[in-house]
């Protein structure tokens, strides 16, 4: 009998569903071999997903903790591991360890607040976990606005869930946008930061932003211009990680380890870090 | 040394060069550091002494991307590396102003320590003796015992390329040492060992490798923008030996890759923290190339075709492998 248990030793996960979200994003549903959830997590937390012999990488958990049956990961094809994952089929096994990192403060700072979610592209993945958590505990939160944009209509992740479920939740307003005009799209066209200004939100909201760095940069500038304070804005950072527990040193910026002290940071906290993210 | 500083200042002042690449005083007398000097006043920290073993040629790849001409001080053997880099289109002669500096051998602090000397504060090379000032009193060592390995096979005191010479006489000959007469003596010794003993020798040496990559990063012939060993697509690891095979594979592949281009500058062995005699692998290739394709000194000029990138009817036939006992 082996005497070893360590956070670096993963669990075995079974893929029970794969949804093609966009041409390069798929959502994988994962459970343990016993058919149950692998672990409990909070919105914003991540897990290390691996295919032995191919690689291991950190992905945010996109399903809500309120889902009692499984975890989901929305994964964009962008390297050797994600290529391999995209070619896998339902029933195949992977390894998962986690959850890692902090979470959006859904039970503390965000409670009772009006929320504004701003996401770009695959950046919806971590926010979807919070959005569904908030929808399931609707009474604990104020108004919910979701501003989500992507390159094209085909690049909007979770579109079915957005249209069928989010848009029909009372007190939840969804604002979609795509970068360029496209046949069959009747919604807004334009970049997320530009649309944000057009929407003229009141500043009585707590904002959660996630997307490509360039979008975050301009969105943050837009929010400040609109009168938001940095203490009202949360985002997640993404860096290379190996251990997930603040030891291997890879995601170290300043005195923080993004895998352990993050990935969720309030924007005024990020200002105190050397700009290496 | 003052002459070098004065000349560098002149060349900076008249705009011939935009910066100077040389050696800067360290904290301990034996640890000068390769350094750029952009202004005349910075040259006050310039130093040139027998501890300036570092071959500055490879830094010229980076310097070549900067505006203007770089003045570089090269020892005779360093100029071979420079020529080879020119031949490989890694550096441009017209972006470089070379002052050839005289050299009477460079010292290896590691070898000094190995003679049992501790706390070296300073060392002076005087003829065939090195006088050492240490924390524990004055000591002495025979120069031949503490010279860098490369100096034992000195190619001579001639700079194969330079714009001017300071402190060096053209045509000055290298001192006669046993190895300078036959630089392949150590290689031959290894060749004459039974295969199992030769294998044991290299295993003992290479098993000390810590995979720091200093040999590769310092090597003027290793100028690939991205090394195959740094590729994540390659089933190897540049940071640790996943097994005993890998430590040998890394060094042997590297030796193959620099074969025909290695000038035998000895930087690999100079920087190895574990003092592995890596130059012997490269020198074995040089010896074989000499035997198979005729004597060839990489970096002796910038025009001749390398033996492994050229073809002649006199080239050795592959059958030589069987003749040498390497076939099955």
């Amino acid at each position: 009998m082996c005497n070893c248990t360590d956070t670096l030793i993963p669990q075995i996960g079974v893929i029970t569903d794969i949804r093609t979200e966009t041409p390069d994003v798929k959502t994988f549903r994962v459970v343990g071999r016993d058919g149950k959830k692998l672990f409990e997590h909070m919105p914003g937390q991540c897990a290390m997903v691996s295919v032995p012999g191919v690689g291991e990488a950190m992905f945010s958990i996109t399903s809500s903790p309120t889902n009692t049956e499984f975890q989901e990961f929305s994964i964009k094809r962008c390297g050797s591991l994600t290529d391999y994952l995209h070619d896998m089929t339902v029933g195949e096994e992977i390894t998962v360890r986690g959850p890692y990192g902090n979470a959006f403060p859904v039970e503390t700072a965000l409670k009772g607040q009006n929320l504004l979610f701003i996401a770009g592209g695959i950046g919806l993945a971590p926010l979807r976990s919070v959005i569904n958590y908030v929808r399931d505990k609707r009474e604990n939160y104020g108004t919910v606005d979701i501003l989500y944009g992507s390159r094209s209509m085909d690049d909007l992740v979770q579109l079915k869930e957005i249209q069928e479920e989010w848009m029909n939740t009372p007190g939840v307003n969804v604002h979609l946008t795509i970068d360029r005009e496209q046949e069959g799209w009747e919604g807004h066209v334009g970049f997320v930061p530009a649309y944000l200004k057009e929407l003229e939100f009141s500043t009585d909201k707590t904002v959660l932003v996630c997307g490509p760095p360039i979008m975050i940069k301009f969105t943050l500038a837009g929010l400040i211009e609109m009168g938001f304070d940095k203490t009202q804005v949360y985002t997640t950072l993404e860096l290379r990680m190996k251990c997930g527990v603040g030891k291997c040193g890879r995601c170290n910026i300043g005195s923080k380890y993004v895998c352990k002290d993050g990935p969720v940071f309030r924007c005024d906290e990020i200002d105190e870090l050397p700009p290496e993210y | 040394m003052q002459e070098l500083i004065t000349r560098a200042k002149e060349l900076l002042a008249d705009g011939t060069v935009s910066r100077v690449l040389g050696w800067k005083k360290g904290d301990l007398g034996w640890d000068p550091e390769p350094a750029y000097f952009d202004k005349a006043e910075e040259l006050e920290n310039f130093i040139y002494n027998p501890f300036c073993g570092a071959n500055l040629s490879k830094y010229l790849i980076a310097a070549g991307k900067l505006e203007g001409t770089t003045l570089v001080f090269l020892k005779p053997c360093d100029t071979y590396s420079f020529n080879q880099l020119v031949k490989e289109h890694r550096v441009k002669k017209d972006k470089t102003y070379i002052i050839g500096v005289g050299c009477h051998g460079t010292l290896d602090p590691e070898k000094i320590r190995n003679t049992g000397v501790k706390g070296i504060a300073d060392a002076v090379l005087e003829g065939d003796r090195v006088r050492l000032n240490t924390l524990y009193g004055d000591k002495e060592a025979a120069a031949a015992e503490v010279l860098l390995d490369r100096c034992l096979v000195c190619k001579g005191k001639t700079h194969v390329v330079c714009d001017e010479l300071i402190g060096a006489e053209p045509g000055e000959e290298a001192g006669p040492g046993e190895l300078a007469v036959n630089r392949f003596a150590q290689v031959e010794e290894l060749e004459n060992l039974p295969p199992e003993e030769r294998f044991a020798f290299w295993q003992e040496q290479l098993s000390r490798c810590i995979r720091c990559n200093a040999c590769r990063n310092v090597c003027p012939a290793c100028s690939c923008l991205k090394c195959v060993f740094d590729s994540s697509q390659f089933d190897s690891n540049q940071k640790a030996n996943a097994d005993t095979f890998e430590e040998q594979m890394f060094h042997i592949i590297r030796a193959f890759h620099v074969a025909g281009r290695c000038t035998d500058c000895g930087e690999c062995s100079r920087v190895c923290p574990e003092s592995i005699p890596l130059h012997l692998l490269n020198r074995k290739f040089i010896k074989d190339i000499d035997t198979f394709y005729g004597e060839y000194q990489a970096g002796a000029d910038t025009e001749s075709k390398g033996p492994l990138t050229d073809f002649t009817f006199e080239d050795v036939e592959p059958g030589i492998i069987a003749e040498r006992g390497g076939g099955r």
Partner: protein
Amino acid sequence: MYRVKKDRLTELFTSVSKVQDLFLPLRKCDQTNYGLWTPEETFDLDTLKTVKSAKDCFFPQSEVLYRCRKEDGKISIDPQQLCDRPFVVFGMRACDVKAVEVLDRVFLSDPVDSFYKARREHGTIVSMACHEPEETCFCRNFEIDPAAPGADVETWLTEDSLYWKPLTEKGEALTAAAEEFLEKTEDGDKTVEEEQTAIRGIVEKLPLSHLDLSRFKQENTMELFDSPLWEEMYKPCLACGTCTFVCPTCQCYDIRDFDAGKNGVQRYRCWDSCMYSDFTMMAHGNMRTSQMQRFRQRFMHKLVYYPANNDGLYSCVGCGRCVSKCPASLNIVKVIKKLGGEA
């Protein structure tokens, strides 16, 4: 205080090595490194600094975490057995002993690294005072006393004897086990005190003993980070990993797979270096694209970030290995002087 005659050390080591693994500085090919001692090996207690530190004994350069196999689409995971054999590391200097504390704070903090913890629990450290400190030593700046190296047992090596003083329970246990070779000594204290005075006297006079570290504080993070001096300092850096791999406190690691053929996949971890270009490389980009940034990270981590998380403890112990081994003669002392000024 106990004493063992120098010429009986081999007997002492033989006796210890019969019941547990004994790691000693071993002399091979003109170099001294820690290794498992057997009577056929030559130990070397005179060389002050092993090339690599004793870090490998607790955090090896490369170690398997678990093995994976895939059969009929089913993955099986077989974790590596944790260290369960007691061992002794003999001859660690004060700086390397302090470095273990630096590593402890990383690997024993929550969540505990079980691989490291098992080795720490099973390892007994016998330290040795630095008879003749060298010019590259600068441990004094980190309040380390090479005349009183600490750990489980501390020892002093003189002309003819090794003086032995157990400090912990583990140290007492080892002392009891080696009783046969250790004689109690009355005048030992005096000899040791003399040796200590001599060592401390030399330390005061070492060229790198008086550095000013006062600027390396968390509140100066951004000022130090933005300093234009990094741009000047990094240029000779070859981007190799020598400083990292000879450093007793560097703790960054990588996790990789080794395809062991029909034996499945070994997932192992190995030391990594923030000096390497792929350290922060991700599928979609790299947050440190220049060597200046990577160079800065190493020193900021040791002098500012690590202390910020660990009650002001620096992640440098002044062992001086980087001073003697850097191929370009760059080192943390030069960085401290340049950024912090000299006292």
